């Protein structure tokens, strides 16, 4: 075998290997069973003596910064009428989602808990109305409204007329350390 032939084979092999790499996992189905809400994601609470502090939910990694999940969440945000109360992050009937003020926590699993359980000042409960996967997708999208996610995962344009600067240019709002995913 000549050198040219061998290097062509090597190049072809390299290309075939690289083609198999995905930037992210896309799950169309979610887990076979409905996903449950995180048990430990209650809003910021006093934990006596630092005992039983909530741990980061392992599902966060699957949805945070996942472009497919964020894109589905963007669609669901309109379909489920989130935009009817929260608009494009500015708020109205509901609180603003694009700023750094989080009444019930800004971590992705806390947002999931808020959507599923509802909250005392008027956030409706969507338990039984949305599947677990849909709620996590929505939470992943809500996190992008305050600029929390990687800029290459967010959508560069809205589904309707643009009203706010594109999300790829949204400044990241600071989060309370208790809300950050690094805890």
């Amino acid at each position: 075998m000549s050198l040219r032939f061998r290097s062509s084979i090597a190049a072809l092999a390299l290309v075939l290997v690289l083609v198999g790499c995905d930037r992210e996992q896309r799950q169309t189905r979610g887990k076979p069973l409905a996903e449950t809400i995180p048990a430990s994601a209650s809003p910021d609470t006093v934990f006596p003596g630092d005992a039983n502090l909530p741990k980061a939910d392992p599902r966060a990694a699957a949805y945070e910064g996942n472009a497919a999940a964020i894109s589905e969440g963007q669609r669901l945000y309109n379909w489920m009428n989130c935009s009817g109360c929260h608009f494009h992050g500015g708020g109205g009937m509901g609180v603003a989602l694009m700023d750094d003020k989080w009444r019930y926590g800004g971590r992705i699993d806390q947002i999931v808990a808020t959507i599923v359980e509802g909250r005392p000042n008027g956030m409706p409960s969507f338990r039984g109305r949305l599947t677990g996967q849909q709620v996590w997708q929505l939470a992943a999208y809500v996190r992008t409204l305050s600029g929390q996610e990687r800029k290459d995962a967010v959508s560069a344009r809205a589904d309707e007329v643009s009203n706010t600067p594109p999300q790829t240019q949204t400044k990241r709002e600071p989060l309370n350390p208790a809300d950050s995913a690094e805890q």
Partner: protein
Amino acid sequence: MRRGAAWLVLLLTGCNSYQNALGGDGAEGANFVQLFTVFMVVCTVMYLIVAAALVFALWRRRRTALVLDDRTHHQTSRVVRPALAAWTALIGTGLVVLTIASFFTDRTNAAQGSKPQIKITVTANQWWWDVQYRLPDVSRNVRTANEIHLPVGIPVKVTLKSNDVIHSFWIPNLAGKQDLIPGRQTDAQLLPRKVGLYRGQCAEFCGVQHAQMALDVMVESKEDFLRWYAGQLKPATAPANSLQLAGYRYFTTRECSTCHNIGGTPASGQVAPDLTHFASRRSIAAGTLPMARGNVYGWVADPQSQKPGNRMPTVGLSANDLHALVAYLETLK
């Protein structure tokens, strides 16, 4: 002879009768088939002439010397120039004929569609068709999904809209393609001439399930159409036994009613196909599965396995809920 016939049959298996662009079962489609024939004839004639000229040139080339002297050149040009002139004239005539034929086809189609007696609005979504019949008395409008019924011989105007990306409305037997563009309204005219079942298709790539975005079109007699329409106007059948009632309860209080609408019940979701008369349809999920009990079970239990990436999530129903839901859905005739 028999082997030739067998080969012919083999070739013709590509042409089924219910999704056939050369079917000509609607007036517009028939006009296009006529135009297609004109094009075929003209182009075939041109092709044969060109092929003949090529063959002739090759044959003649073998017989003459390789060197071109002045005498041969002069002799050849005496033939070539008039031949080229005649050829140019032929092409020009051919193009003019084709243009005129095309123009008249469009005019005929427009004229046939100028006085529609039925108006339908088709809104394309990823990856299903929302069909609404619009009457002057709006309380008698009918809304269905993925299926169109038409009476034979009556002109129809279809207003086309899209809720997300560009799709294309194509019922090959009846008419040509027309795009559905978000933010715009386009129109298509249909004048079905033959009773039958036809299959339509989305003809513009619109996402991961573009291939499973079909449309069932039923062309029927006027009486059958009116009977179907009257059935569609009725509100949904009420649940008759406890299993159906359990299914009704699940549907109207849980995930299903977040997106789907069943007329006459509290389920009024607007973003998914209208299911008021779900069981009366020919197929599920825009032609993905034929309507049958097993398919309904499979679809409701796990739509993502049948049509991965589509907008209906896998809920993860328990067996009891699944039985109840399917029992209820089957009553929605």
